[in-house]
């Protein structure tokens, strides 16, 4: 095969930040597991419960989300345009075709659900179908399909496992250990142990929360980039993001609250209010996403 030149440069900085975040998360979790083991078997039950929750999340979250969000699967006859766009992107990305669904709400948004390439549902809201031009819609769908390719649902669910565990332990210990522990004839050693586990859990939860949010933002950048690479039209996605964000603010709040839990998998977060600090956001700020897409467009144009 002829030597292929890439139309897009590499984004080593993003890769490095993502790997660094995961490394820190891993390190944090290892310390946490160490403390749990040192604290003894009392935590065993919680771990089992947490693993159970993880499995439910991995295998059931898409179904739960679909049920609560009013997601309706649509056939090619009902939505030929959307199916056509997704089919071509699937050929281009060499993916099996996901299920295609529509959410009947005027809020313009899109999301991908499911843990693997075989069990994916790609959703678009009625609002986004009406708002965007075909090229922009293609950019958004390519963004969602990149989440599928990168297995972001799986990565984020697994990455947040120990954070969930830590928060459960913190709540559990507060409830049973902290308040009235003395009355059950525990020794002072046991008291201290519970306090230690509680403290560590709270700290682990706080740090992992920030790390997870950072990871989520990096995955969004990666999906934007993947969309640009897949469609060859970074500016179409940028224009779609601008259009969506322009209308996000006028959306009735009832839809927003129902959509709250889903925001990690949406193309733009479902909340209208501006985040106080970027480190708490699970999506990068719009300006940064636009700037990254602009860099991709200039790389593409400069490929001559």
């Amino acid at each position, binding site marked *: *095969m002829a030597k292929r030149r*890439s139309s897009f440069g590499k984004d080593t900085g993003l890769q490095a930040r993502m790997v660094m975040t995961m490394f820190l998360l891993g390190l944090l979790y290892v310390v946490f597991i160490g403390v749990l083991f040192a604290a003894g078997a009392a935590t065993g039950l919680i771990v089992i419960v947490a693993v159970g929750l993880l499995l439910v999340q991995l295998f059931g979250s898409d179904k739960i989300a679909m049920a609560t969000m009013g997601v309706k699967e649509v056939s090619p006859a009902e939505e030929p345009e959307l199916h056509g766009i997704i089919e*071509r992107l699937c050929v281009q990305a060499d993916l099996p*075709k996901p299920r295609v669904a529509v959410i009947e709400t005027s809020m313009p948004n899109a999301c991908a659900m499911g843990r693997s390439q075989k069990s994916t549902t790609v959703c678009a809201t009625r609002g986004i179908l009406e708002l965007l031009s*075909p090229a922009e819609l*293609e950019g958004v769908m390519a963004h969602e399909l990149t989440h599928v390719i990168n297995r972001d649902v799986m990565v984020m669910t697994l990455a947040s496992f120990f954070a969930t565990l830590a928060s459960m332990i913190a709540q559990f210990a507060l409830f049973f250990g902290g308040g009235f522990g003395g009355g059950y004839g525990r020794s002072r050693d046991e008291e201290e142990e519970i306090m230690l586990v509680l403290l560590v859990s709270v700290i682990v939860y706080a740090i992992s929360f920030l790390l997870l949010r950072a990871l989520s933002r*990096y995955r969004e950048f*990666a999906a934007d980039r993947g969309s640009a690479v897949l469609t060859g039209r970074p500016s179409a996605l940028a224009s779609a993001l601008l259009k969506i964000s322009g209308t996000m603010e006028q959306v009735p709040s009832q839809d927003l609250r129902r959509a709250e839990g889903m925001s990690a998998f949406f193309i733009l977060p479902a909340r209208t209010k501006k985040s106080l600090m970027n480190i708490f956001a699970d999506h990068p700020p719009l300006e940064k996403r636009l700037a990254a897409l602009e860099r991709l467009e200039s790389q593409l144009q400069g490929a001559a």
Partner: protein
Amino acid sequence: MGLRDILTGRHAVKGPAPDRLFAISTAYVGLQAEHQIEPAGAAAIVFQALATSDFESTLRDMEEVVRATGGDSATSVSTEDDSYGYRWMILRNPDGAPNVEDLTVGINAVAGSIESAGYGERLLCAVFAFVDRSGGGGRAPGARVYFIYNYKRGDWYPFVPDPDHPQQRLTERELQIKAQIASELPLEPELERWFPLWGIPI
């Protein structure tokens, strides 16, 4: 895609698979002789047209290459953009003289120049148009049958749109064709990847 790519969220668009485009230039003989599926004298290559000056000049060079290689056989070239933003470069044999070999050579020349310019991952598929003269299964003879070559996978599949109903395909006929020519043409084994292409302009 490896674990590392999953963890870093990195993803490159696949380039073309090893070339099995030329399989059609021998398979059509059997299609014509045994199954009454005759070449319609047209083929097209479908790709994403990038809005860059480098890509545009690649396209202009490419059309000249095709005109030059098709000079003896008088193959004509035209381009068309569809509503999905993909560009179709359409090759047609002169009237009454369908020639699948010429079309295959032409399509391959286009794909080759897109690839050598470094845009191989933009190629979507090639489409060859045929006419179904057999008329079995309640269909009128003369309906279109398309053979679609997926560049990412290097596989072929038949696509038979229903002439009477828009956006519907005659899956039964496609499966019959599959059974008939599986030994001659490398077919896509996964049926869920037999993606339709609506509104084919050839």
